[in-house]
């Protein structure tokens, strides 16, 4: 099923959450309409945002739902920041032709930019953690390419913000006395990066 029209169907937050969770790995539903369900509040909307963009880690963002390309949650009129953000993620799904491209775009926009990341944390209702915290959980061998990507996509200020907390980990990668170990790590790094961020 690709189109699901559920306008004015008496759905509440719990119903919306059940539906949202089921869409997490769904790759067929492209359009869902839920207008006129006034019992769906911020809680239900947030459940859909989490499905479209799981903020909990880079990997989970990459593996979010990239199939939904149209979602209408509210009637026309003034939209909340949450709804505008959902619209924006939906547009990202629509714009990127493959799941990989959409996942990559979401990681770059929402995880690797400090301002967007701060906004997203707020919309998801979770405490803000800096890019430095995020990168602390990543294998140091991946850091140089991620930092390069941040510089390339978001400029020098963002690169600096990310570089400061990660510098010690970054230095641990520079160890020329273990050439063979580095070569193995490089292969691992290349594979990981191809999977997450590759073109």
């Amino acid at each position, binding site marked *: 099923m690709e189109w*699901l*029209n*559920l306008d004015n*169907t008496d*759905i509440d937050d719990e119903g919306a959450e059940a*539906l949202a969770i089921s*869409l997490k790995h769904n790759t067929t539903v492209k359009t869902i*309409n839920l207008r006129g369900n006034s019992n769906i509040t911020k809680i239900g909307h947030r459940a859909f945002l989490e499905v479209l963009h799981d903020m909990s880690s880079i990997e989970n963002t990459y593996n979010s739902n990239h199939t939904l390309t149209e979602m209408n949650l509210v009637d026309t009129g003034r939209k909340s920041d949450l709804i505008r953000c959902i619209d924006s993620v939906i547009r990202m799904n629509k714009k990127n032709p493959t799941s990989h491209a959409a996942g990559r775009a979401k990681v770059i926009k929402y995880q690797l930019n400090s301002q967007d990341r701060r906004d997203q944390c707020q919309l998801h209702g979770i405490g803000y953690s800096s890019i430095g915290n995020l990168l602390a959980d990543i294998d140091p061998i991946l850091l140089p390419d991620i930092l390069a990507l941040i510089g390339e996509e978001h400029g020098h200020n963002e690169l600096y913000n990310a570089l400061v907390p990660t510098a010690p980990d970054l230095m641990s990668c520079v160890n020329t006395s273990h050439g063979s170990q580095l070569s193995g790590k490089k292969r691992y790094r290349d594979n990981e990066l191809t999977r997450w961020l590759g073109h």
Partner: protein
Amino acid sequence: MASLANLTKEQVDKEFNQAFGRHTGLSKGMRKVLDIIKNNGIISELGENKFVLYPAEAILFTNQAWQLLGKYIANHTHLDDVDLDGCSLTDQKMFALFSGLVKSSLSELDIRDNVFGIEGVRSMVRFLQNSPNLSYIYIMENNNFNSECFTVLVQALQNTRVRRLELEECSITDISVLEAYNDLPNLHTLNLNCNKIGRGGCVSLANLSYKKEIQDWNG
């Protein structure tokens, strides 16, 4: 009522005149279209092959007329689309229509804005299962179309080619049948707007999604 194949031309014409003759008050244009359908002809010069019955004409249809119309549509080999929007189809009229209409070449059936209920839906079952091209079904704006009707409809549509099911503004509150019957492989659009399916409906749709996911994983 005998099948068309078993009747002489005189008998067919007599039956037609009884149901659709000038005395019925039907317009000349409608009688002409009905005659074309009876003779398996092409309705539109544009080749649309669509039959539309307007409410003002439908009100003049007797049960015999509905039954005969059903029979003509069943015997038509290339009719694509039948539109009976707002034709005051009650259970009784549905029963008459679908006692003749047991199979078809139709790809689209529009019976929105009518008043039939469960008996009307039950009378459709044989038609639904013997219309291999049927892809689009519109049953909107019908307060008597409730959860029981939805259950019978979904069961009847198992393993059919139906792509689009428009059920806006009916009285469906329970769609759990979808969880049990996951054999609507071609269903592309499901419109349940303005039916109070609530939280339970979401859970049913979620379970359907999980079921599909498991099927995909299992190849």
